[in-house]
């Protein structure tokens, strides 16, 4: 099959970028989207041109490295699917495909489709530690965890930090990411001692990183390759409200990072 690509090319963080057109011929419908880009890049290299830079690692949809706006949707047209697990059979012969990097002030473009997602790392860091015993493994059921809590925590913990929620949000908000992280620890008994401090610190860091705020468009939930629910955002807001109401000056315990 043949597709026409309009790819965002930007030489560096401060360089001006623009969409550049490429014709990709002889593409197999069985190729993944990233394999298609690999083929385009090989041909660019043969022609002596600079290949298209994009992030990728595991290519099996679990690492969160890849991510790009494909035809105006984060990770492309397929639900619950990262860009690496999207296949060219999702497109038709002769299709035009627009490819752009995630767009947010907090995610500056490094090159072409690669953005700096360090802001996510700093939100995680702000969450600090949990007072869980380390060392040798405990008995499996030493800490009883309700089925409901275990399920909700696991659903939230599925977040791979790819940034699609921010990319798809009309406000470039990181609410779904932050809420997923707050929920997956806040639901478990191990996460209770620092739960309030964590909610305050992570929400605060989210604002420092210049992300937008949540207006509940729901675009993040739709874009999330792991199907994280906006229910987590309600959970984050509740924890934040409760934490702010019960916060005492100088009562902060524990460190961060």
């Amino acid at each position, binding site marked *: 099959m043949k597709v026409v690509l309009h790819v965002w090319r930007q030489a560096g963080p401060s360089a001006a970028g623009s969409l550049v057109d490429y014709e990709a011929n002889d593409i197999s419908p069985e190729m993944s989207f990233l394999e298609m880009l690999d083929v385009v890049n090989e041909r660019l290299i043969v022609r002596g041109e600079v290949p298209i830079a994009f992030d990728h690692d595991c290519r099996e949809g679990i690492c969160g490295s890849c991510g790009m706006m494909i*035809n105006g949707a984060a990770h492309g047209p397929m639900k619950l699917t990262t860009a690496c697990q999207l296949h060219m059979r999702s497109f038709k012969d002769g299709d035009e495909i627009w490819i752009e990097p995630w767009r947010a*002030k907090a995610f500056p473009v490094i090159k072409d489709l690669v953005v700096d997602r360090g802001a996510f790392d700093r939100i995680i860091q702000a969450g600090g530690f949990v007072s869980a015993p380390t060392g040798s493994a405990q008995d499996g059921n030493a800490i009883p965890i309700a089925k409901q809590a275990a399920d909700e925590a696991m659903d939230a913990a599925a977040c791979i930090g790819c940034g699609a929620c921010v990319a798809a949000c009309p406000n470039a908000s990181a609410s779904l990411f932050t809420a997923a992280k707050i929920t997956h620890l806040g639901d478990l008994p191990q996460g209770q001692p620092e739960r309030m401090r964590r909610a305050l610190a992570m929400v605060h860091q989210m604002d420092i990183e210049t992300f937008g705020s*949540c207006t509940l468009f729901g675009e993040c939930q739709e874009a999330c390759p792991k199907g994280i629910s906006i229910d987590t955002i309600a959970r984050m807001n509740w924890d*934040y409200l409760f934490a702010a109401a019960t916060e005492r000056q100088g009562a902060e315990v524990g460190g961060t990072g």
Partner: protein
Amino acid sequence: MERSGLRRFWDSSVGKKIVMGATGLILVAFVIGHMAGNLQFFSGPARFNAYSHLLQVDVIELTWLLRVTLLASVVLHVIAAYQLTMQNRAARPADYVRREPQVSTYAARTMRWGGVYLLLFIPYHLLHFTTGTLHPAFVRGEAYGNVVIGFQTMWVALFYLGAMAFLALHLYHGAWAAFRTLGIARPSNDPLHRRLALAIAVIVPAGFSLLPLSVMLGFIR
């Protein structure tokens, strides 16, 4: 100087959004009550004027308490909305060449401009029917006659109906989002589903609209 807890709450995007949700719910409760009260219009002049007298004279202290609460709610709601909008605009300085909304509703996308329309509507409405300043033939105590004459001007009635259209959109998103923002919505398999907000968004603006419509269409003169 350590900033106070309240100040930090307001300065955070989540805190500000919670303020918007809480004040929004106060305003939702108000429009439901206001609409229900208005329906007494269809019980005739005596009943409607008596209702007006009750609010304006008999329980005027309570009315003022309500007015102050509503004014404070609107002010907080609008300031928070403005500041969050500015924050959100700044969060994406370079926009996409192509972005396709997947699930966002028309109601969600019109929250801001619809809110501006309502913000222009509210002062006009107060100057029209409460103080009578912008009313062509205002008679204090004659609420029924004031409504009939007020809506006989076509553009005024249309302006009111426009406000109700935006109110419907605002309620459809807001009455659902407020519960989620405040964290009191129950987890759902379909979080975008909103039966209660749909009912409020249809019933409240429809009930309000019956007044201008009945006058415009000549059912009440």
